[in-house]
């Protein structure tokens, strides 16, 4: 069973719909027992960073502990941003700190709108198992105004081009995150979720340093 963290943010329902569509047993919950018993955790989120982290409350400690102990974790959009150390969206907020880096505004550019909203191409590194079977590049649906500046040397990063090489996904051992919305990226997105479910079914690997 995969648990989708239920914490009063936007896209929780869409993520559950998508997981169920690919035949995955998904539970929407914020109960400690359910989260502990799950094979993997999905942390969704459509909200401002500060609001999301405050709604997560005490769950952030639990999620962090389980991730360090090796449980697969997938953050989506703001759920992905919360994997990092901090964000500067409407003030300074601390994230879970599982991956080093900070969440900062997308630089403005006269040709490119912020929010970055729509389908953009992501270059998919061979060594990220989240993208297994998807080839070298695919389009995904994005909707965000901040991005994660990843500083962790051990983290694998996939990039998209939005006037600069912008991180679009990250992987550090069992911790995964995507800035885009796999639950809204059609068949390609469903494949990413399927890959995560398969990762959850494998024996655990530890996050460590």
């Amino acid at each position: 069973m995969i648990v989708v963290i239920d914490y009063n943010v936007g896209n929780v329902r869409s993520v559950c719909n998508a997981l169920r569509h690919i035949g995955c047993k998904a539970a929407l919950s914020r109960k400690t027992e359910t989260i502990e018993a799950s094979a993997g955790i999905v942390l969704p989120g459509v909200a401002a960073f500060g609001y999301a982290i405050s709604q997560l409350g005490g769950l952030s400690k639990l999620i962090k502990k389980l991730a360090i102990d090796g449980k697969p974790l997938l953050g989506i959009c703001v759920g992905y941003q919360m994997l990092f150390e901090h964000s500067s969206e409407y003030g300074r907020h601390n994230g879970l700190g599982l991956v080093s880096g900070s969440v900062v505004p997308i630089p403005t550019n006269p040709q490119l709108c912020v929010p970055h909203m729509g389908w953009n191409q992501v270059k998919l590194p061979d060594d990220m198992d989240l993208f297994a079977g998807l080839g070298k590049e695919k389009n995904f649906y994005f909707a965000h105004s901040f991005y994660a500046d990843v500083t962790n040397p051990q983290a694998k990063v996939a990039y998209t081009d939005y006037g600069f090489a912008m991180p679009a996904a990250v992987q550090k051992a069992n911790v995964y995150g995507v800035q885009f919305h796999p639950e809204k990226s059609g068949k390609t997105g469903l494949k990413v979720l399927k890959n995560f479910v398969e990762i959850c079914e494998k024996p655990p690997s530890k996050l460590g340093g």
Partner: protein
Amino acid sequence: MLTKRIIPCLDVKDNRVVKGIKFLNLRDAGDPVELGARYSDEGADELVFLDITATIRFRKTIIELVEKVAENVFIPFTVGGGIQTVEQMDVILRSGADKVSVNTAAVSNPNLLTEAAQRFGNQCVVLAIDARRSKEKLNKWQVCVKAGSEPTDIDVVEWAVRGEKLGAGEILLTSMDADGTKVGYDNKLNKAVSDAVNIPVIASGGAGKLEHLYDAIIDGGADAVLMASITHFGNYTIKQMKEYLAGRAIPVNL
């Protein structure tokens, strides 16, 4: 670089998808849940669902249908029709929509756009404009409300500019003159609006041939093209549209 989007539109009346010509003579086009699932599966970039029964009053019954459609739609999903308050928007978003579109309510209460943007972010707020060509002035369009039944004195370009300032994140621009005619989009209208705003413009009304999509993007400056008749009645698949555009060097998500 962001791709240009292909967006099928479900006009829903009495729980069925319908499609007319110039907003009249509605013809049945199928089941919204089935059509939604089909477009999501076929590779559409987004889906728009407009409850055209509502127009004046928000119907609670629509929520159930939105939930059912959303269960099988794995692309961004916009819902509109009769939405008047941020509370109603909240209900729609919780039912599985990613964006809400407002039309009549924004004209009678423009602050709604600001309230909605502050609460949900402007990426969630679509300003739908039903535009009718002015009979008196050349290349001027007037905003119509209540499913096109009521013309106002408001100029479409001015309203679009104001809508952006108030908090709209996108403009869904429908030409009532071209709607359902399949003679092509009103690209003078699309160009006038897309030149005046910095947010994406979705061209709507008039798609009949593949080159119409290209023209709306190139001549009309549209970021996305919306269609109903030509997809519902099987003239073209989403893939055919995308392959055609890609063949003419338009970036699309194939």
